[in-house]
């Protein structure tokens, strides 16, 4: 879960000298404002990669170093990537199952109530509870409710729609929907230390490492 809480960035009020960056170039968003007393609150550090292999490799290494609040960004789903960042469980199937069961019960219950309790009608001597004739609509209700659970469940768990997110501030992030791959280490990770993270990402074959402002 990305922590978007701007109130509590672990690396917020630090002054520049705390982590004199040994690196030049685009990482030094802090260095661009040497006179500012307080650097802007930091969401994290993001590294850009050229290939999915580099990204997954980096994600695995960063995870092995003990970082947990990390996230990858890619133009298409990469199974190995979610494994590498330790995100392998989702409760979506359970949500969809519950949605389907409730939909089915509601669908059958609706027909039972209308045809048996509220408006019983003798049709050719058929029983009021003609349950086989109620199955098609029950089935459709199962599918409809389960499909809504899948779509809405996915959007809600993903916290979408979300018009603003700090990673959109990364200069080259538009390429994340084309052919570039990104790995973010978030500032609220307990192990987060700006200089260390930057160095680590640099060593992992990143094209570029930059700070992400909240």
């Amino acid at each position, binding site marked *: 879960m990305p922590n978007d809480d701007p109130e509590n960035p672990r690396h917020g009020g630090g002054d520049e000298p705390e982590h004199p960056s040994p690196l030049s170039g685009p990482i030094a968003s802090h260095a661009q404002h040497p006179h500012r007393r307080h650097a802007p609150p930091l969401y994290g550090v993001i590294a850009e990669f050229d290939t999915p292999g580099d990204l997954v490799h980096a994600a695995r290494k960063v995870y092995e170093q003990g970082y947990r609040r990390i996230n990858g960004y*890619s133009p298409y*789903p990469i199974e190995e*990537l979610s494994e590498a960042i330790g995100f392998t469980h*989702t409760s979506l199937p359970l949500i969809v199952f519950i949605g*389907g069961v409730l939909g089915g019960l509601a669908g059958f219950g609706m027909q039972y109530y209308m045809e048996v309790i509220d408006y019983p009608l003798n049709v050719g001597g058929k029983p009021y509870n003609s349950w086989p004739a109620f199955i098609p609509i029950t089935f459709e209700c199962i599918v409809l409710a389960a499909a809504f659970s899948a779509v809405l469940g996915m959007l809600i768990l*993903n916290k979408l729609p979300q018009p603003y997110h700090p990673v959109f501030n990364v200069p080259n992030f*538009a390429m994340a929907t084309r052919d570039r791959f990104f790995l973010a280490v978030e500032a609220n990770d307990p192990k987060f230390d700006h200089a260390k993270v930057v160095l680590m990402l640099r060593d992992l074959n990143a094209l570029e490492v930059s700070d992400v402002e909240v």
Partner: protein
Amino acid sequence: MHSTAPVIDPGMTFASVTDKISSIVLKRKTSLAWFFGFAISFALFQLMLLAITNLVFVGIGLWGVNVPVAWGIDILNFVWWIGIGHAGTLISAILLLLRQRWRTSINRFAEAMTLFAVAQAGMYPIFHLGRPWLMYWLFPYPNTMGIWPQFRSPLMWDVFAVSTYATVSAMFWFVGLIPDFATLRDRARSKPFQLLYGMLAMGWRGSARHWHRYEMAYLLLAGLATPLVLSVHTIVSFDFAVGIIPGWHATIFPPYFVAGAIYAGFAMVLLLTIPLRRFYGLEGFITMRHMHNMAKVMLATGLIVGYGYIVEAFFGWYSGNRYERFMIWNRMHGPYSLYYWALILCNIITPQFLWWKKVRSNLLALWIISFIVSIGMWLERFVIVVTSLHRDYLPSSWGMYQPTVWDWSMFIGTIGFFFTLLFLFIRFLPMISIFEMRTILPSAEVEE
């Protein structure tokens, strides 16, 4: 060219796939041919609006339907359109579950076709009601009349099946589009389009956690859509099979209808993609492999449909029921026998050419066969609807059915509406799923 042909041109990269597909929407100048095609479709769409307006003003007598043939080509067109729609769901959902990677470049387009075909289909039963402004009576809502719909009727099953199908197809399509909306948002140059695609993308940023849930949701939707599509056409066939009209009351109907739907749908996908890939230069994405595979699916389902015809005739004879026997005889030799034999020619004889690889590799031949199959599937529903109804039990109530100019206006009009939507789709949305195309690139393999 053979079936080992690649599913994507080997020279493609993440960048070229993205740029090529998104440029059709964002950069390419709208061609004159597009305007021309759109103008014709839009004009025909106006014909549909005219036909509907006239129908609502004058009444259902405008159509050729009357006792004994109260279901004319209007219910026929409903079945025809919804059948066409089914190939889209088959391609997007069933082939996804079967891990057929070749589906990737045609699924978006096929899903759009599904949605637009279902929109046409849905209109027919509503306007066939006679008083279409009371169509909400079909839905179970608490009302002052104190009554509820009759859930033992297949017509109510139809309401739920078709509305569920339309809703789930739309959701499936939209979910598939979200990552591509993000791609377009990041590529768009003009502010209005950035805003439009940005809102539709809902802030999608390609996060690994999002992708994980997204893939799960997509897979579950595919798993739900697969039995759904089978159930929808099964229920459409129940509209007939639950009735006791000779020729309708048969257990073969559900599988026979489902196979026919897939058959007609694949014919329509081929009919549309063959000119489209050529016009937009998409041969690198929709390769000959796709054409071969779709032709094979068409051949296989065509054979199932052929089996259906044989079993229908066998049932008529084996039932020992004189009405059933007469129905088959009347189909083959009665006043509508021309339709029956034309249907055999279109649906059983024509697809046999697909056994030859040479025919499957010839796009013109494939297009012509698809066109003939589309007509054949229309004739099949004509034969089922009309020949069973026009001469059932009592000879005193026999009659003939003739569609009127307004029946045809409505039908041609829906074709116009379908193509209007399709033209708008290929102009404003990526007709090939960009993110799924990236996954089938060789460079998508993770090598550490």
